[in-house]
């Protein structure tokens, strides 16, 4: 796969990954609807959450492709508060997390200055990463409730925005292999997820288009995926 964000190979692989991934919410919705028909109880709010999860993935894919292929597509970075992006992502993810018995923690304590980023892109990428990990986490915890943390913290290169969980198998090698395999393998991240993990590769595409790079990151003994953002010189609004 080319490392250029607008490469046709990337678009092709991303499309394959998304189509495979989209089967999951569609099958989940079909089975929930069937349960309702069988009179075995199903809840419409679950169906709605699953549908919205699929729509978010498609929206992220569409945004990633637009950002990667259209150089002038509103890419101008703006001054963005990472805390507010994580807060909004948390609100978007709560219902899905509940369905998977995953608890979301928002760790935005500490006062960080705004960063330079494309706000909509940053939020879509964080939601994509988190959704992929929410689907993957229960397999690692054998049914016990698991936690996913949306966090921001400072590192020597800037301010990190990321998603973190107790996932010791999430390593740089895992991500490197996944980047090579996605679109060609049903499980490019086989040590952490049973899904194609498309949300992670959509996020990767969005970050690349924003001239940022998705990294493996550690925070408070948790393993995660994060991006380093540069502080904006603009004064923070209080």
């Amino acid at each position, binding site marked *: 796969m080319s490392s250029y964000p607008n490469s046709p190979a990337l678009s092709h692989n991303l499309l394959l990954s998304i189509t495979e991934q989209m089967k999951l919410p569609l*099958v*989940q919705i*079909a*089975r929930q609807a069937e349960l309702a028909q069988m009179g075995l109880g199903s809840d419409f709010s679950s169906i709605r959450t699953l549908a919205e999860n699929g729509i978010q993935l498609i929206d992220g894919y569409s945004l990633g492709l637009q950002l990667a292929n259209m150089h002038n597509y509103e890419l101008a970075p703006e001054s963005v508060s990472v805390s507010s992006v994580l807060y909004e992502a948390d609100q978007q993810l709560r219902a899905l997390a509940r369905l*998977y018995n995953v608890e979301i923690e928002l760790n935005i304590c500490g006062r960080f200055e705004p960063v330079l980023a494309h706000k909509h892109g940053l939020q879509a990428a964080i939601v994509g990463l988190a959704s992929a990990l929410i689907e993957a986490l229960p*397999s690692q915890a054998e049914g016990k409730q698991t936690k996913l943390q949306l966090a921001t913290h400072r590192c020597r290169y800037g301010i990190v925005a990321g998603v973190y969980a107790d996932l010791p198998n999430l390593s740089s090698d895992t991500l490197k292999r996944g980047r090579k395999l996605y679109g060609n393998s*049903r499980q490019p991240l086989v*040590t952490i997820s049973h899904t194609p993990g498309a949300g992670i590769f959509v996020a990767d595409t969005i970050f690349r288009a924003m001239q940022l790079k998705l990294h493996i990151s550690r925070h408070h003994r948790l393993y995660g995926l994060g991006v380093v953002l540069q502080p904006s010189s603009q004064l923070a609004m209080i």
Partner: protein
Amino acid sequence: MNKPLLLVVEPDGVLAGSLRAALSGSGYDVVHAYTAQEAVIKADQSIPALVILELQLVGHSGMEFLYEFRSYSDWERVPVIIYSSVPPGEFAGSRETLLEQLGVRAFLYKPNTPLTELVQTVNNLRQMVSRSNESI
């Protein structure tokens, strides 16, 4: 009378919930495992009457689970249904191994298989197994 126990090996928590609801509603006890390792532990705790298996699991695959499962004499005759997101055409080359060596009794492609069809397949297999046990 005890209900027959089914072991469902399904890595997705939401789909596992749907399977549990449909199978419990049809008169079965269901024990669920997310991974191959967990499935072996659960099977060891109480021998299932039948296993429903996804091949795409985190870490060890469904195929690896099957080889491990069949290596124990207690579990040699437990029927296995593959209920997977992997289209059957993709493991056509392994079909004979799955049928003859690993005792797989049915292949169901998850996206195209309604819960009613899965339950019907389980019922049919249970009847076949009881008939063959009676004839022995």
